[in-house]
């Protein structure tokens, strides 16, 4: 309750609202552009550009003589561009790899920036204080003017992406194809790069050189876990970015002397980890659960099939089978088999017959399901020997896993491809459910 009150009080402060709006807008646009960066395998190019604009900021300051935001913006955009051209030239003209080019540009340009910054400091120009906000970021000092710049740029970025979404998507996924169908690939790549440099330049003042890269990478990577569609990924990444901006700002505003940038990154990382763990389909936990469910299903099916095979072996359909019989036919973990039997009873696939000798009996439903497993298994074995020309003694293990995976559609295809055969390569009967029943076996 107290915290909530603190947050409300904090929100009441007009300066805090400027900072919040600024980081919100920054997170939004960085999230959107980060998707392109990741998609185009350029995650760390953003890192290099963020470091490489420092000399541009310093040179602009040396030329103009004060911290005119517009001049600094132009300076850093020019150097952002130069750094991209240099990286490109190194990769094009030498045997060095992309990451070497990124690392070199990052460190040498940054070194140049540090030289210029210390040079400016040594000249004693009184206006220079605060230039190092570009290094470490200082969101707390965002002014209404800065937020206006942020806002304008964010709107420009979002509109540009919305208008040329289709072209940008095409160029990011497959530049060669885009070129072949007549897209102006160079111009679109230029546009994406320009938007990226703009975002980085603006973001530096809020989060600093090192953490700018994470504003581009982390929200986009988080978005990737939730969807296969670029559009949705961008919306999620923008949301994660904006939420991290706001969250980080509030956390750092509550604790005194806490830097905003790192808390924004920590918030983004938290949202990333949630996505990594819990996103449906791609999330780690969800995948683990799905794998476990599959393993359980396979175990249950194996137990069910074993009971069926016992009946097939001695032809005694009405005979109850004890746990011992089942385990004698097929070696399985006793504890797991017990729990499988429990689940099969609940599912109505087998009946528990009490008394001495007590045991388990297939129900109609269980019999049908087990029969299908055996049928699919034998069809697959036959398919492997007759169509793929694999020796008969090599096909059992493969069929053992395929029987749990083959869908009714594949089963139908197999049946018609093989001409509804009667026996498998080991001359065992392939059971066909109702038809066989009509044949008088039951």
């Amino acid at each position, binding site marked *: 309750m107290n915290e909530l009150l603190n947050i409300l009080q904090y929100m009441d402060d007009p300066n805090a609202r400027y900072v919040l709006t600024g980081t919100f807008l920054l997170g939004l646009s960085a999230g959107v552009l980060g998707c392109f960066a990741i998609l185009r395998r350029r995650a760390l*190019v953003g890192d290099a550009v963020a*470091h490489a604009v420092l000399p541009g900021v310093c040179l602009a300051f040396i030329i103009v003589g004060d911290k005119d935001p517009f001049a600094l913006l132009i300076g850093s955009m020019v150097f952002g561009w130069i750094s991209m051209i240099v990286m490109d030239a190194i990769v094009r003209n030498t045997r060095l790899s992309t*990451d070497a*080019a990124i690392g070199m540009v990052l460190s040498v340009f*940054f070194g140049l920036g540090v030289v210029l910054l210390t040079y400016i400091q040594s000249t004693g120009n009184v206006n220079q204080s605060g230039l190092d906000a570009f290094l470490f970021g200082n969101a707390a000092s965002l002014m209404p003017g800065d937020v206006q710049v942020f806002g304008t740029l964010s709107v420009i970025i979002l509109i540009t992406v919305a208008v040329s979404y289709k072209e940008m998507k095409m160029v990011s996924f497959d530049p060669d194809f885009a070129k072949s169908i007549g897209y102006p690939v160079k111009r679109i790549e230029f546009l994406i790069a320009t938007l990226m440099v703009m975002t980085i330049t603006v973001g530096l003042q809020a989060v600093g050189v090192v953490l700018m890269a994470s504003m581009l990478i982390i929200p986009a990577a988080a978005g990737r876990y939730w969807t296969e569609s670029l559009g949705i990924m961008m919306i999620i990444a923008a949301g994660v970015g904006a939420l991290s901006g706001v969250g980080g700002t509030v956390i750092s505003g509550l604790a005194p002397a806490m830097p905003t940038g790192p808390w924004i990154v920590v918030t983004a990382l938290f949202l990333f980890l949630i996505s990594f763990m819990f996103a449906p389909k791609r999330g780690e936990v969800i995948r683990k659960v799905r794998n476990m469910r599959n393993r359980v299903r396979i175990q249950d099916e194996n137990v069910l099939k074993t009971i069926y095979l016992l009946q097939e072996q001695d032809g005694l359909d009405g005979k109850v089978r004890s746990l011992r019989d089942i385990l004698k036919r097929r070696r399985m973990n006793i504890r797991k088999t017990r729990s499988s039997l429990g689940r099969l009873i609940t599912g109505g696939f087998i009946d528990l017959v009490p008394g001495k000798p007590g045991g388990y009996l297939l129900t109609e439903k269980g019999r049908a399901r087990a029969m299908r497993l055996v049928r699919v298994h034998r069809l697959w074995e036959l398919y492997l020997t007759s169509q793929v020309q694999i020796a008969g003694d090599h096909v059992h293990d493969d069929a053992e896993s395929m029987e749990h995976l083959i869908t009714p559609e594949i089963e139908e295809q197999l049946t018609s491809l093989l001409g509804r055969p009667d026996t498998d390569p080991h001359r065992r009967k392939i059971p066909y459910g109702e038809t066989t029943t009509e044949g008088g076996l039951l």
Partner: protein
Amino acid sequence: MITSTFWILLTGSLAAASCALVGSFLVLRKQSMMGDAISHAVLPGIAIAFLLTSSRNTFPMLLGAGAFGLITVYFTEFLHKRGRLLHDTSMGIVFTSLFAFGVILISLYAAQVDLDQECVLYGEIAYIPWDLWIWNGLNMGPRPVWILGLVLVLNLAFVGFFYKELKVYAFSPEYAASLGIPVGLVHYGLMGSVSFSTIASFESVGAILVVALLIVPPATAYLLTEKLKPMLILAMATGVLSAVSGYYLALFLNASIAGSIAVMTGVFFLGAYLFSPSDGVLTRRYRKTDALPEPDEFAVL
């Protein structure tokens, strides 16, 4: 009387030689950015060591930073494999997060931790001559010189001892694995050396300059020769030359020494890029043999 200039030059040269030696393998292995990642990600390790021992003792710091260097390598691999992200994406997530974590730790315990972000980013090589190691009342010279010297010896021993393994591994890990070389061990050994060199150089030259020393001199040497041994020697030589010339550039401009050294590594690279007898852009144009090796898939424009 040994002057402070001498100590600064010696520190810079030792750091440059150490970094160039292990950095060469990073460049050949196309893992240059791992140096950048490790140099940022060791920050929390340093801060934790600082908090636990409440001193600027070097040994715990080296341990803390080394541990976080390996954590970076491990988590990058983890997110790459389990999280199914591209290698550079997972690296970007891991090292920026660890750096952020380090900055938060430092600002939480600002009273106890006598470290600031600026020193982390640019280092303070200018103060090296006053960071003395007094042993049994004897003035042994600046402490960082000893540490960097030790790290250089360790790196030389590592490379000398595993030269063949490293060589095969650097050019083709798959082939190395097929020869029965323990590739995982060599990989982590190399990353360990990178971590140690980074941390030892870190204090004097800062996080970003370490990256310059790790990558740029080896890249320069790579443009000048195709053989591994000459490349290692050239890389170390270029590193040392950059350190020395960078120091004088800094004196001339009255600017940061670390930054100037980084700029000089860039100047030497530019020289090799333009004039290398085999690979130089201008040399090739002059000879009109545009025999370019296959470039990576990369176009910024």
